[in-house]
Protein backbone atom coordinates (compact mmCIF):
# COMPACT_ATOMS: atom_id res chain seq x y z
CA UNK A 1 0.00 0.00 0.00
CA UNK A 2 1.23 3.50 -0.82
CA UNK A 3 1.28 6.27 1.77
CA UNK A 4 -0.11 8.59 -0.89
CA UNK A 5 -1.45 7.96 -4.34
CA UNK A 6 -2.98 10.41 -6.79
CA UNK A 7 -4.61 9.52 -10.09
CA UNK A 8 -5.11 12.33 -12.59
CA UNK A 9 -5.77 14.66 -9.67
CA UNK A 10 -7.04 17.99 -10.98
CA UNK A 11 -8.30 21.18 -9.37
CA UNK A 12 -9.74 24.02 -11.39
CA UNK A 13 -10.83 27.45 -10.16
CA UNK A 14 -13.02 28.93 -12.89
CA UNK A 15 -10.65 29.08 -15.87
CA UNK A 16 -7.44 28.57 -13.87
CA UNK A 17 -6.11 25.04 -13.42
CA UNK A 18 -4.29 24.95 -10.07
CA UNK A 19 -3.39 21.26 -10.25
CA UNK A 20 -3.39 19.50 -13.59
CA UNK A 21 -3.67 15.69 -13.81
CA UNK A 22 -1.25 14.96 -11.00
CA UNK A 23 -0.11 11.34 -10.85
CA UNK A 24 2.23 10.50 -8.00
CA UNK A 25 2.79 7.67 -5.55
CA UNK A 26 4.63 8.09 -2.29
CA UNK A 27 5.82 5.05 -0.37
CA UNK A 28 5.13 4.57 3.31
CA UNK A 29 7.87 6.17 5.42
CA UNK A 30 9.22 8.16 2.47
CA UNK A 31 10.03 11.87 2.67
CA UNK A 32 8.75 13.38 -0.53
CA UNK A 33 9.41 17.00 -1.46
CA UNK A 34 7.16 19.09 -3.68
CA UNK A 35 9.05 21.95 -5.29
CA UNK A 36 7.73 24.74 -7.41
CA UNK A 37 7.58 28.48 -7.80
CA UNK A 38 4.69 30.44 -6.22
CA UNK A 39 1.37 29.34 -7.70
CA UNK A 40 2.77 26.04 -8.98
CA UNK A 41 -0.03 24.13 -7.22
CA UNK A 42 1.84 22.66 -4.25
CA UNK A 43 -0.48 23.97 -1.54
CA UNK A 44 -3.61 23.13 -3.54
CA UNK A 45 -2.35 19.56 -3.93
CA UNK A 46 -1.81 19.36 -0.17
CA UNK A 47 -5.27 20.80 0.49
CA UNK A 48 -6.87 18.09 -1.64
CA UNK A 49 -4.84 15.36 0.08
CA UNK A 50 -5.88 16.61 3.54
CA UNK A 51 -9.58 16.92 2.59
CA UNK A 52 -9.43 20.72 2.78
CA UNK A 53 -10.66 21.06 -0.78
CA UNK A 54 -12.36 18.79 -3.27
CA UNK A 55 -10.72 17.76 -6.53
CA UNK A 56 -12.45 18.86 -9.72
CA UNK A 57 -11.57 15.46 -11.17
CA UNK A 58 -9.28 12.55 -10.48
CA UNK A 59 -8.72 10.71 -7.23
CA UNK A 60 -6.37 10.75 -4.29
CA UNK A 61 -5.73 8.19 -1.58
CA UNK A 62 -4.05 8.27 1.81
CA UNK A 63 -3.00 4.80 2.99
CA UNK A 64 -5.53 3.39 0.56
CA UNK A 65 -8.41 5.56 1.80
CA UNK A 66 -10.16 7.77 -0.73
CA UNK A 67 -9.88 11.45 0.27
CA UNK A 68 -13.25 12.23 -1.25
CA UNK A 69 -15.44 9.35 -0.14
CA UNK A 70 -13.65 8.38 3.09
CA UNK A 71 -12.67 11.83 4.36
CA UNK A 72 -13.45 11.05 8.02
CA UNK A 73 -11.04 8.10 7.88
CA UNK A 74 -8.43 10.13 6.02
CA UNK A 75 -8.58 12.91 8.64
CA UNK A 76 -7.55 10.38 11.28
CA UNK A 77 -4.50 9.44 9.21
CA UNK A 78 -3.10 12.86 8.34
CA UNK A 79 -1.47 15.74 10.16
CA UNK A 80 -0.85 19.13 8.60
CA UNK A 81 1.33 22.08 9.44
CA UNK A 82 0.08 24.88 7.22
CA UNK A 83 2.10 27.70 5.65
CA UNK A 84 0.72 30.16 8.19
CA UNK A 85 1.55 29.13 11.73
CA UNK A 86 -1.96 28.09 12.75
CA UNK A 87 -1.92 27.88 16.53
CA UNK A 88 -4.34 29.18 19.19
CA UNK A 89 -2.55 32.43 20.02
CA UNK A 90 -4.10 33.04 23.44
CA UNK A 91 -3.37 29.54 24.72
CA UNK A 92 -0.03 28.45 26.14
CA UNK A 93 2.10 25.85 24.39
CA UNK A 94 0.87 23.15 26.80
CA UNK A 95 -2.75 24.23 26.40
CA UNK A 96 -2.45 24.08 22.60
CA UNK A 97 -1.15 20.52 22.84
CA UNK A 98 -3.85 19.52 25.33
CA UNK A 99 -6.55 21.00 23.10
CA UNK A 100 -5.42 18.87 20.16
CA UNK A 101 -5.28 15.81 22.44
CA UNK A 102 -8.94 16.53 23.27
CA UNK A 103 -9.79 16.86 19.58
CA UNK A 104 -8.32 13.41 18.97
CA UNK A 105 -10.31 12.04 21.91
CA UNK A 106 -7.39 11.14 24.17
CA UNK A 107 -8.02 10.23 27.81
CA UNK A 108 -6.74 12.46 30.61
CA UNK A 109 -3.88 10.06 31.23
CA UNK A 110 -2.86 9.88 27.57
CA UNK A 111 -3.13 13.66 27.27
CA UNK A 112 -0.62 14.14 30.10
CA UNK A 113 1.69 11.52 28.57
CA UNK A 114 1.52 12.96 25.06
CA UNK A 115 1.97 16.55 26.31
CA UNK A 116 5.09 15.61 28.29
CA UNK A 117 6.46 13.60 25.37
CA UNK A 118 5.97 16.41 22.85
CA UNK A 119 7.41 19.07 25.14
CA UNK A 120 10.49 16.95 25.68
CA UNK A 121 10.80 15.81 22.03
CA UNK A 122 10.75 19.37 20.74
CA UNK A 123 12.77 20.85 23.64
CA UNK A 124 9.97 23.22 24.56
CA UNK A 125 10.42 23.08 28.35
CA UNK A 126 11.38 26.77 28.54
CA UNK A 127 8.33 27.98 26.63
CA UNK A 128 5.70 25.44 27.64
CA UNK A 129 3.76 27.94 29.78
CA UNK A 130 4.17 30.81 27.35
CA UNK A 131 1.22 31.93 25.25
CA UNK A 132 1.63 30.93 21.61
CA UNK A 133 1.03 34.50 20.44
CA UNK A 134 4.17 35.67 22.24
CA UNK A 135 6.47 33.00 20.77
CA UNK A 136 9.12 33.75 18.13
CA UNK A 137 8.57 32.53 14.55
CA UNK A 138 10.78 29.49 15.08
CA UNK A 139 8.98 28.37 18.23
CA UNK A 140 5.59 28.89 16.59
CA UNK A 141 6.63 26.66 13.69
CA UNK A 142 7.84 24.04 16.13
CA UNK A 143 4.52 24.19 17.95
CA UNK A 144 2.66 24.01 14.65
CA UNK A 145 4.51 20.81 13.71
CA UNK A 146 3.98 19.44 17.23
CA UNK A 147 0.22 19.94 16.85
CA UNK A 148 0.31 18.18 13.48
CA UNK A 149 1.87 15.14 15.16
CA UNK A 150 -0.57 14.83 18.06
CA UNK A 151 -3.05 12.69 16.16
CA UNK A 152 -0.22 10.18 15.56
CA UNK A 153 -0.58 10.64 11.79
CA UNK A 154 0.58 8.11 9.27
CA UNK A 155 1.12 10.91 6.76
CA UNK A 156 2.45 14.34 7.72
CA UNK A 157 2.15 17.38 5.45
CA UNK A 158 4.64 20.18 6.07
CA UNK A 159 3.75 23.17 3.92
CA UNK A 160 6.82 25.41 3.80
CA UNK A 161 7.78 24.70 7.42
CA UNK A 162 10.90 26.87 7.39
CA UNK A 163 9.45 29.89 5.60
CA UNK A 164 10.74 33.09 7.22
CA UNK A 165 12.96 31.32 9.75
CA UNK A 166 16.56 32.29 10.44
CA UNK A 167 19.35 29.88 9.59
CA UNK A 168 19.60 28.41 13.09
CA UNK A 169 15.86 27.86 13.38
CA UNK A 170 15.89 26.23 9.93
CA UNK A 171 18.62 23.82 10.94
CA UNK A 172 16.71 23.01 14.13
CA UNK A 173 13.63 22.29 12.02
CA UNK A 174 15.67 20.04 9.72
CA UNK A 175 16.76 18.08 12.78
CA UNK A 176 13.14 17.56 13.76
CA UNK A 177 12.13 16.47 10.26
CA UNK A 178 15.11 14.10 10.05
CA UNK A 179 14.08 12.54 13.35
CA UNK A 180 10.65 11.79 11.90
CA UNK A 181 12.02 10.41 8.64
CA UNK A 182 11.29 6.74 8.08
CA UNK A 183 8.72 6.62 10.87
CA UNK A 184 5.92 8.32 8.96
CA UNK A 185 5.32 9.43 5.39
CA UNK A 186 6.17 13.11 5.00
CA UNK A 187 5.25 15.51 2.23
CA UNK A 188 7.35 18.64 2.37
CA UNK A 189 6.80 21.72 0.25
CA UNK A 190 9.57 24.27 0.18
CA UNK A 191 11.17 27.03 -1.86
CA UNK A 192 14.61 26.18 -0.48
CA UNK A 193 16.47 23.81 -2.78
CA UNK A 194 19.09 22.98 -0.15
CA UNK A 195 16.29 21.90 2.18
CA UNK A 196 14.80 19.48 -0.33
CA UNK A 197 18.26 18.23 -1.30
CA UNK A 198 19.16 17.66 2.35
CA UNK A 199 15.95 16.01 3.51
CA UNK A 200 13.99 14.41 0.69
CA UNK A 201 14.17 10.85 -0.60
CA UNK A 202 12.42 11.87 -3.81
CA UNK A 203 11.44 15.20 -5.28
CA UNK A 204 8.62 16.30 -7.57
CA UNK A 205 9.00 19.57 -9.45
CA UNK A 206 5.74 21.36 -10.22
CA UNK A 207 5.01 24.23 -12.58
CA UNK A 208 1.63 25.60 -13.67
CA UNK A 209 -0.14 22.83 -11.78
CA UNK A 210 1.72 20.05 -13.59
CA UNK A 211 4.33 17.65 -12.26
CA UNK A 212 7.21 18.41 -14.63
CA UNK A 213 9.67 15.91 -13.20
CA UNK A 214 9.84 13.38 -10.40
CA UNK A 215 12.66 11.32 -8.97
CA UNK A 216 15.69 11.23 -6.73
CA UNK A 217 18.24 14.03 -6.94
CA UNK A 218 20.44 11.89 -9.21
CA UNK A 219 17.51 11.13 -11.50
CA UNK A 220 16.58 14.81 -11.73
CA UNK A 221 20.19 15.73 -12.47
CA UNK A 222 20.44 13.21 -15.25
CA UNK A 223 17.03 14.24 -16.62
CA UNK A 224 18.00 17.92 -16.74
CA UNK A 225 21.65 17.42 -17.59
CA UNK A 226 22.57 19.84 -14.81
CA UNK A 227 24.51 19.48 -11.58
CA UNK A 228 22.72 20.14 -8.29
CA UNK A 229 19.05 20.55 -7.51
CA UNK A 230 18.86 24.31 -8.06
CA UNK A 231 20.29 24.11 -11.58
CA UNK A 232 18.12 21.09 -12.37
CA UNK A 233 15.05 22.92 -11.07
CA UNK A 234 15.77 26.00 -13.18
CA UNK A 235 16.35 23.87 -16.27
CA UNK A 236 13.15 21.86 -15.76
CA UNK A 237 10.86 24.76 -14.78
CA UNK A 238 12.37 27.52 -16.89
CA UNK A 239 13.50 25.36 -19.80
CA UNK A 240 17.07 26.63 -19.32
CA UNK A 241 16.17 30.32 -19.63
Amino acid sequence: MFGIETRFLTKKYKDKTAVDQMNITVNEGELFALLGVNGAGKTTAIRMLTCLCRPTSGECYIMGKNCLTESNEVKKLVGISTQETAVAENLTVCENIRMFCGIYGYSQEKTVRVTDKMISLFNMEDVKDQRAGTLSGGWKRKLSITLALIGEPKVLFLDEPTLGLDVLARREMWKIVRALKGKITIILTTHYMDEAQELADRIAIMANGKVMALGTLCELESLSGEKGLENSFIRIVGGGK
Partner: protein
Amino acid sequence: MRKKAFSVRIFKEIIRDPLSYIFCLGFPLIMLVVMTLINDSIPQETGMTIFRIDDLAGAIAVFGLTFIMLFVCLTAAKDRLGAFLVRLYATPMRSGDFIVGYTLPAFLLAALQTVITFAVSEAVSLFTKVELHLGGLALAAVSLFPTMIMFISLGLLSGTLFSEKAAPGLCSVIISLSSFLGGVWFDADRTGGVLLKISKALPFYHSVKVARLASALEFEGFGKHFLITVVWAAAFTTAAVFVFKVKMRADIK
Protein backbone atom coordinates in the same frame (compact mmCIF):
# COMPACT_ATOMS: atom_id res chain seq x y z
CA MET B 1 -14.46 15.26 23.89
CA ARG B 2 -13.89 17.36 20.75
CA LYS B 3 -16.65 19.76 21.82
CA LYS B 4 -15.12 20.10 25.28
CA ALA B 5 -11.62 20.71 23.89
CA PHE B 6 -12.85 23.46 21.58
CA SER B 7 -15.13 24.97 24.27
CA VAL B 8 -12.23 25.24 26.71
CA ARG B 9 -10.18 26.99 24.07
CA ILE B 10 -12.95 29.52 23.29
CA PHE B 11 -13.56 30.13 27.01
CA LYS B 12 -9.87 30.88 27.57
CA GLU B 13 -9.63 33.02 24.43
CA ILE B 14 -12.48 35.24 25.66
CA ILE B 15 -11.48 35.53 29.32
CA ARG B 16 -7.87 36.29 28.38
CA ASP B 17 -8.90 39.24 26.25
CA PRO B 18 -8.87 42.33 28.52
CA LEU B 19 -11.46 43.99 26.27
CA SER B 20 -14.01 41.34 27.26
CA TYR B 21 -13.88 42.57 30.88
CA ILE B 22 -14.26 46.18 29.79
CA PHE B 23 -17.19 45.52 27.48
CA CYS B 24 -18.89 42.48 28.96
CA LEU B 25 -18.69 43.55 32.60
CA GLY B 26 -17.30 47.07 32.99
CA PHE B 27 -19.52 48.89 30.52
CA PRO B 28 -22.89 47.42 31.59
CA LEU B 29 -22.05 47.94 35.27
CA ILE B 30 -20.94 51.52 34.68
CA MET B 31 -24.21 52.15 32.83
CA LEU B 32 -26.07 50.63 35.76
CA VAL B 33 -24.45 53.06 38.20
CA VAL B 34 -24.63 56.08 35.87
CA MET B 35 -28.31 55.54 35.12
CA THR B 36 -29.05 55.13 38.82
CA LEU B 37 -27.37 58.49 39.44
CA ILE B 38 -29.41 60.02 36.60
CA ASN B 39 -32.54 58.56 38.15
CA ASP B 40 -31.72 60.45 41.35
CA SER B 41 -31.84 63.70 39.38
CA ILE B 42 -35.24 63.01 37.85
CA PRO B 43 -38.03 64.71 39.82
CA GLN B 44 -40.44 62.16 41.30
CA GLU B 45 -43.48 64.01 39.95
CA THR B 46 -42.55 63.06 36.37
CA GLY B 47 -43.47 59.48 37.28
CA MET B 48 -40.51 58.21 35.24
CA THR B 49 -39.20 54.96 36.69
CA ILE B 50 -37.21 53.61 33.74
CA PHE B 51 -33.85 54.29 35.40
CA ARG B 52 -34.96 53.06 38.83
CA ILE B 53 -32.94 50.01 39.77
CA ASP B 54 -35.96 47.66 39.79
CA ASP B 55 -36.67 48.60 36.16
CA LEU B 56 -33.05 49.03 35.17
CA ALA B 57 -31.54 45.75 36.43
CA GLY B 58 -33.27 43.47 33.91
CA ALA B 59 -32.77 45.89 31.01
CA ILE B 60 -29.04 46.24 31.73
CA ALA B 61 -28.75 42.44 31.93
CA VAL B 62 -30.14 42.23 28.37
CA PHE B 63 -27.89 45.12 27.28
CA GLY B 64 -24.84 43.25 28.67
CA LEU B 65 -25.70 40.16 26.64
CA THR B 66 -25.28 42.14 23.43
CA PHE B 67 -21.56 42.37 24.23
CA ILE B 68 -21.35 38.60 24.61
CA MET B 69 -22.73 38.53 21.06
CA LEU B 70 -19.95 40.90 19.99
CA PHE B 71 -17.23 38.66 21.45
CA VAL B 72 -18.63 35.47 19.93
CA CYS B 73 -18.78 37.30 16.62
CA LEU B 74 -15.19 38.56 16.92
CA THR B 75 -13.86 35.13 17.93
CA ALA B 76 -15.62 33.35 15.06
CA ALA B 77 -14.59 36.01 12.51
CA LYS B 78 -10.96 35.96 13.70
CA ASP B 79 -10.86 32.15 13.52
CA ARG B 80 -12.14 32.25 9.96
CA LEU B 81 -9.61 34.90 8.94
CA GLY B 82 -6.56 32.92 10.07
CA ALA B 83 -5.44 29.44 9.14
CA PHE B 84 -6.37 27.97 12.52
CA LEU B 85 -9.93 26.99 11.64
CA VAL B 86 -8.78 25.52 8.32
CA ARG B 87 -6.22 23.46 10.18
CA LEU B 88 -8.96 22.15 12.46
CA TYR B 89 -11.03 21.20 9.41
CA ALA B 90 -8.29 18.66 8.65
CA THR B 91 -8.82 17.00 12.05
CA PRO B 92 -11.79 14.83 13.08
CA MET B 93 -13.67 18.02 14.19
CA ARG B 94 -17.22 18.18 12.75
CA SER B 95 -19.40 21.25 12.25
CA GLY B 96 -21.43 20.39 15.38
CA ASP B 97 -18.23 20.40 17.47
CA PHE B 98 -17.44 23.92 16.33
CA ILE B 99 -20.97 25.21 16.94
CA VAL B 100 -21.20 23.74 20.46
CA GLY B 101 -17.62 24.87 21.07
CA TYR B 102 -18.52 28.48 20.38
CA THR B 103 -21.92 28.39 22.13
CA LEU B 104 -21.24 26.58 25.41
CA PRO B 105 -18.47 28.82 26.85
CA ALA B 106 -20.30 31.94 25.67
CA PHE B 107 -23.43 30.70 27.45
CA LEU B 108 -21.48 30.19 30.68
CA LEU B 109 -19.99 33.67 30.39
CA ALA B 110 -23.43 35.14 29.64
CA ALA B 111 -24.90 33.45 32.72
CA LEU B 112 -22.00 34.66 34.85
CA GLN B 113 -22.37 38.19 33.49
CA THR B 114 -26.10 38.18 34.29
CA VAL B 115 -25.47 36.96 37.85
CA ILE B 116 -22.86 39.69 38.41
CA THR B 117 -25.16 42.35 36.93
CA PHE B 118 -27.98 41.30 39.27
CA ALA B 119 -25.63 41.09 42.27
CA VAL B 120 -24.45 44.65 41.63
CA SER B 121 -28.08 45.72 41.10
CA GLU B 122 -28.95 44.24 44.49
CA ALA B 123 -26.09 46.21 46.04
CA VAL B 124 -27.25 49.41 44.31
CA SER B 125 -30.80 48.81 45.54
CA LEU B 126 -29.52 48.86 49.14
CA PHE B 127 -28.24 52.41 48.60
CA THR B 128 -31.25 53.65 46.67
CA LYS B 129 -33.68 52.05 49.11
CA VAL B 130 -35.66 50.49 46.27
CA GLU B 131 -36.58 46.92 47.04
CA LEU B 132 -35.37 44.22 44.62
CA HIS B 133 -36.69 40.68 45.02
CA LEU B 134 -33.85 38.18 45.16
CA GLY B 135 -36.24 35.49 43.92
CA GLY B 136 -37.31 37.80 41.10
CA LEU B 137 -33.70 38.35 40.04
CA ALA B 138 -33.03 34.60 40.10
CA LEU B 139 -36.14 34.02 37.97
CA ALA B 140 -35.06 36.79 35.59
CA ALA B 141 -31.61 35.20 35.21
CA VAL B 142 -33.16 31.85 34.29
CA SER B 143 -35.77 33.49 32.05
CA LEU B 144 -32.99 35.13 30.10
CA PHE B 145 -31.52 31.77 28.99
CA PRO B 146 -33.30 31.88 25.59
CA THR B 147 -32.13 35.49 25.14
CA MET B 148 -28.57 34.42 25.92
CA ILE B 149 -28.79 31.69 23.26
CA MET B 150 -30.33 34.17 20.84
CA PHE B 151 -27.50 36.71 21.18
CA ILE B 152 -24.81 33.99 21.02
CA SER B 153 -26.38 32.64 17.82
CA LEU B 154 -26.55 36.14 16.39
CA GLY B 155 -22.84 36.55 17.19
CA LEU B 156 -21.97 33.24 15.55
CA LEU B 157 -24.11 34.10 12.54
CA SER B 158 -22.43 37.50 12.07
CA GLY B 159 -18.94 36.10 12.70
CA THR B 160 -19.53 33.34 10.15
CA LEU B 161 -21.02 35.57 7.48
CA PHE B 162 -18.81 38.63 7.75
CA SER B 163 -15.11 39.41 7.95
CA GLU B 164 -13.27 40.43 11.11
CA LYS B 165 -13.55 44.06 10.00
CA ALA B 166 -17.21 44.05 8.94
CA ALA B 167 -18.65 41.84 11.70
CA PRO B 168 -18.00 44.17 14.68
CA GLY B 169 -19.66 47.00 12.75
CA LEU B 170 -22.73 44.89 12.20
CA CYS B 171 -22.75 43.91 15.88
CA SER B 172 -22.59 47.59 16.88
CA VAL B 173 -25.70 48.18 14.81
CA ILE B 174 -27.44 45.27 16.57
CA ILE B 175 -26.31 46.57 19.98
CA SER B 176 -27.72 50.04 19.23
CA LEU B 177 -30.93 48.64 17.74
CA SER B 178 -31.51 46.20 20.58
CA SER B 179 -31.05 48.81 23.30
CA PHE B 180 -33.09 51.41 21.41
CA LEU B 181 -35.94 49.27 20.12
CA GLY B 182 -35.83 46.96 23.11
CA GLY B 183 -36.63 49.82 25.46
CA VAL B 184 -33.50 49.54 27.57
CA TRP B 185 -33.10 53.30 27.94
CA PHE B 186 -36.77 54.32 27.74
CA ASP B 187 -40.21 52.80 28.06
CA ALA B 188 -40.91 51.44 24.59
CA ASP B 189 -44.63 51.08 25.41
CA ARG B 190 -44.92 54.85 25.67
CA THR B 191 -43.66 55.42 22.13
CA GLY B 192 -46.65 53.95 20.30
CA GLY B 193 -47.20 54.04 16.53
CA VAL B 194 -44.81 52.50 14.05
CA LEU B 195 -41.88 52.52 16.48
CA LEU B 196 -43.72 50.33 18.97
CA LYS B 197 -44.85 48.03 16.15
CA ILE B 198 -41.22 47.61 15.02
CA SER B 199 -40.13 47.05 18.63
CA LYS B 200 -42.71 44.32 19.08
CA ALA B 201 -41.80 42.70 15.79
CA LEU B 202 -38.21 42.29 16.93
CA PRO B 203 -37.03 40.06 19.79
CA PHE B 204 -35.20 42.64 21.92
CA TYR B 205 -38.36 44.31 23.30
CA HIS B 206 -39.61 40.93 24.49
CA SER B 207 -36.27 40.04 26.10
CA VAL B 208 -36.29 43.28 28.10
CA LYS B 209 -39.94 42.67 29.04
CA VAL B 210 -39.13 39.14 30.23
CA ALA B 211 -36.26 40.41 32.40
CA ARG B 212 -38.30 43.31 33.87
CA LEU B 213 -41.44 41.25 34.55
CA ALA B 214 -39.51 38.33 36.05
CA SER B 215 -37.38 40.53 38.32
CA ALA B 216 -40.54 42.25 39.57
CA LEU B 217 -42.28 38.87 39.96
CA GLU B 218 -45.09 40.12 37.72
CA PHE B 219 -46.52 37.33 35.64
CA GLU B 220 -49.14 39.08 33.54
CA GLY B 221 -47.97 38.77 29.94
CA PHE B 222 -44.72 37.12 31.03
CA GLY B 223 -45.51 33.80 29.34
CA LYS B 224 -46.21 35.45 25.98
CA HIS B 225 -42.99 37.48 25.99
CA PHE B 226 -40.95 34.50 27.18
CA LEU B 227 -42.37 32.29 24.45
CA ILE B 228 -41.54 34.88 21.82
CA THR B 229 -37.89 34.95 23.01
CA VAL B 230 -37.80 31.14 22.83
CA VAL B 231 -39.05 31.22 19.23
CA TRP B 232 -36.51 33.89 18.24
CA ALA B 233 -33.70 31.97 19.96
CA ALA B 234 -34.68 28.81 18.08
CA ALA B 235 -34.85 30.73 14.79
CA PHE B 236 -31.43 32.38 15.19
CA THR B 237 -29.85 29.13 16.39
CA THR B 238 -31.19 27.27 13.37
CA ALA B 239 -29.94 30.03 11.07
CA ALA B 240 -26.49 30.07 12.72
CA VAL B 241 -26.12 26.28 12.49
CA PHE B 242 -27.26 26.26 8.87
CA VAL B 243 -24.99 29.12 7.80
CA PHE B 244 -21.96 27.71 9.67
CA LYS B 245 -22.41 24.31 8.01
CA VAL B 246 -22.84 25.86 4.56
CA LYS B 247 -19.76 28.07 5.04
CA MET B 248 -17.69 25.15 6.30
CA ARG B 249 -18.69 23.11 3.27
CA ALA B 250 -17.85 26.06 1.01
CA ASP B 251 -14.45 26.48 2.69
CA ILE B 252 -13.44 22.95 1.79
CA LYS B 253 -14.76 23.00 -1.77
